[in-house]
């Protein structure tokens, strides 16, 4: 990761926060603006999961990583705490690679 990216990320994330605080008096989100923001997080997160699961490569592949994501996903679905979810996912993938 380059430092330019780190700087861009830091600046961008802060701009949303301070921007909202400074414009709160004059800016009011329209109902559709508000619902867009509530839908944005689940939509982007699920896109991220898909890209991660399929290795982010140009082809759709199923691998040890996919298996780990599935077992971790089941744990997440059952409301296991985050460290447990990550441990289960990593362990599954590591064990399959060993085989």
């Amino acid at each position, binding site marked *: *990761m380059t430092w330019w990216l780190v700087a861009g990320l830091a600046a961008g994330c802060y701009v949303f*926060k*301070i*921007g909202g605080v400074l414009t709160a008096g004059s800016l009011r989100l329209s109902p559709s603006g508000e619902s867009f923001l509530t839908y944005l997080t689940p939509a982007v997160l699920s896109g991220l999961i*898909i890209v991660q699961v399929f290795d982010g490569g140009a082809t759709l592949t199923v691998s040890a990583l996919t298996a780990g994501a599935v077992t971790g996903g089941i744990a997440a679905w059952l409301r296991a705490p*985050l*460290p447990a979810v990550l441990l289960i996912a990593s362990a599954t*993938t590591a064990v399959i690679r060993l085989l």
Partner: protein
Amino acid sequence: MNDHLKAFWFRQHRRDGFLLGLAVGTFGVTFGVLSVSAGVSAFQAVTMSLLMFTGASQFAAVGVVSAGGDPLSALGTALLLAARNGAYALSMSRVMPSRRIRRVVAAQLIIDESTAMAEAQMNLEDAREAFWVTGVSVFFFWNFGTLAGVLLGEIVGDPMVWGLDAAFPAGFLALLVPHLKQRNKCKAALIGALVALVTIPFLPTGLPVLLAAFGAVVMTRVDARK
């Protein structure tokens, strides 16, 4: 326990805010370990936690870079996930301090947890206090956790052997699950996943994630039609 501590602990929103921060600290440890395993330097990971201070975006940026995405799509994905903080900031402006210098600091503490805790309070005074206690607590433990994580990550060694690459999608799933309880958010997630799935073979890494935002566009239009 001394009297000051007892008086602090007596109020539920303070206690909850503190404990919430402690829980988020475990996320911080994970972020540190995964960042180092994905090839981000320890110094960069610590800087990200201090200056970005918004978990999903940090994980996303590291995730996209580790999957081979270019910096611009890493930035785009992270900012899409950070946009909701702007909406939080609009509603949190009522609990912001009046002094400008303090507002600049307080703004950095606007995240999921501090907003949710402040929104849950009955009066403005409690909301303000809940915001600060939660924000400061999460900030402290998140950064302390990240630091511990990067040190731990240096010891871990080859991330592939430990299957740490599977921790990214699993972690995003854990962040996604609470959203799925709401029907329309679930639909937005499904459409986003579908768009990413269909476009992966044709587009460079990173772009399919950005296009997943289309799920939010569709569901916003569905809402507007009612």
